């Protein structure tokens, strides 16, 4: 069958919104779309795909790469070989896509964020979005892609008819990796998702001793201090202050980003802010593509000047 097989991501019963990007790219590829999902959850609009294959298993077993490889194989044996197998570029998508590629020797391109219909090339980011590679697959199909969230959802096309529903039963469960439980993040008093004004600092801050200086600035401006991942990894700010895919998604009125380069995992968490102001000493920093206002300067100098002016 000439189709794109979409591996749907369901977490705690919810069909993740980022699946729309895999559905979107399959429309763009001009393929019949066949969505593979665990049986327990299904909240997708009825007409976004041609076929849904419901897998009789729970979501944790489904997203385990060791099982998923068997499930995809079963789908291929029953319904024919697809041209593409599509995953979201998420924690589980990356994991399973790589394992699938290795298991069957399939070409793999990850973090795909663009596609050129005329040349058939896929665009993939290098060096945190400073350069992109135009890739093509030379090995045997199916081609395995992981798709960057937010890149293709506008291409989701409504179908004329409701999807055909198929089932996969008797899934083999591998016991060499097993799910135990979900672990929630601790709750804290300050919730950055509620702040109207975030002052966010990145690796450009340099060292821990600088944090109090930015806390002071945030206090003066009545902003809440948040950060990019490296600042949280080093424990200079607590984890609930992390903005990005593996942190929080925020949408303040103003997001003032200082010393943050603009990796997509960060951008994904703040791009819908009303007004983004970025300070970075590198004029080529990708964050300037997403900011409304940009300042090429040393963040510490900007901080000192702002403090001086606010204090009067």
């Amino acid at each position, binding site marked *: 069958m000439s189709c794109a097989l979409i591996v749907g991501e369901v977490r705690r019963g919810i069909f993740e919104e980022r699946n729309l990007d895999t559905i979107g790219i399959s429309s763009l590829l001009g393929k019949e779309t066949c969505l593979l999902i665990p049986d327990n959850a299904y909240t997708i609009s009825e007409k976004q795909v041609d076929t849904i294959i419901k897998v009789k298993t729970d979501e944790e077993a489904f997203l385990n*790469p*060791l099982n998923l490889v068997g499930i995809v194989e079963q789908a291929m044996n029953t319904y024919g070989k697809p041209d593409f197998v599509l995953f979201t570029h998420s*924690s589980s998508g*990356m*994991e399973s*896509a*790589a*394992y699938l590629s*290795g298991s069957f*020797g*399939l070409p*793999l*391109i*990850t*973090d795909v964020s663009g596609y050129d219909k005329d040349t058939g*090339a896929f*665009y*993939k*980011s290098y*060096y*945190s979005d*400073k*350069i*992109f*590679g*135009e*890739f*093509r697959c030379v*090995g045997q199909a199916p081609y395995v892609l992981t798709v960057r969230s937010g890149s293709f959802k506008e291409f989701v096309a409504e179908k004329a008819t409701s999807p055909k529903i198929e089932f996969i039963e008797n899934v083999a469960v591998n016991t*060499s*990796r097993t*799910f*135990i439980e*979900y*672990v*929630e*993040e601790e709750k804290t008093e300050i919730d950055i998702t509620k702040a*109207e*004004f975030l002052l966010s600092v990145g690796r450009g801050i340099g060292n821990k001793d600088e944090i109090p200086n930015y806390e002071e600035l945030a206090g003066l*401006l*009545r902003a809440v201090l948040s950060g990019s991942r*490296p600042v949280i*990894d080093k424990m200079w700010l607590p*984890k*609930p202050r992390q903005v990005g895919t*593996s942190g929080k998604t925020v949408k303040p*009125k103003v997001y003032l980003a200082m010393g943050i380069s603009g990796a997509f995992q960060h951008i994904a968490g703040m791009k819908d802010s009303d007004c983004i*102001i970025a300070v970075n000493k*590198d*004029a*080529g920093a*990708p964050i*300037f593509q*997403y*900011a409304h*206002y940009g*300042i090429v300067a040393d963040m510490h100098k*900007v901080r000192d*000047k*702002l403090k001086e002016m606010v204090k009067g």
Partner: protein
Amino acid sequence: MNILVFTKRVPATQEEELRILGDGKEVDLSKLPFKVNDWDNYAVEEAVRIAEKTGGTVTAISIGDAESDEVLRRAIAMGVKDGFLIEVEKVLQDPYARAMLAYNFLKKENIPFDTILTGVQSEDDQFASVGGILAALLKVPYSSMVIGIDNVENDHLILRRELEGGLQERVKVMLPSVLSIQSGINEPRYVSIMGVRKASKVERKVFKAKDYEESMSSLIEVVKWVYPLKKGGATMLSGELEEICKQILGIIKEKGVYQ
């Protein structure tokens, strides 16, 4: 516990302007500083911590040019016992080809392991897939985005994987296995230049990639390199620092978040 850890030398591009050469065939990296891939630092640290706790040895492996010896020395300075360099003549863009090279090497040299650690991704190509492909080739379980190892037993590990939005999952993984290590799992120890120098005295072994290229072919290829498409882009504020800061304050006042 025998632990292998993959570590890679990458260009530090965060503060650099990158130029594409010719008609898109090459990116000019000639003037860039190089460093250890950030995520691999966490992987090396985690490997050393496991060995310190449970006994056993850690061996660092790097696929790269001769200069990658630098990252092996750094790993040794952090507590790794041996360093193996698989020296390649040209960069392998395809993660499948890279994983196959690592697989052929481990098989041919008969290198024993209980677990293999890699960083979650390389800073340069961001494929985030060599570990997963290698695990599948070795037919062992794989876990990516490992943000905590809660328990190490003889035959299994209990670990936490990072998902999105602050959520994690706890899983049990039987050994042998391959894990990709996420940043923030630990605080990599400080290594002094002296320590790196001292590590030069520990023997590192160099292997030639061409001896392990059997059944290796690229399944994907780069047609060319391009600059990112310009999106809307920011209005750049310019002038003296004072003038710029006045504008910033003006904007935040206008947005109603500051009086």
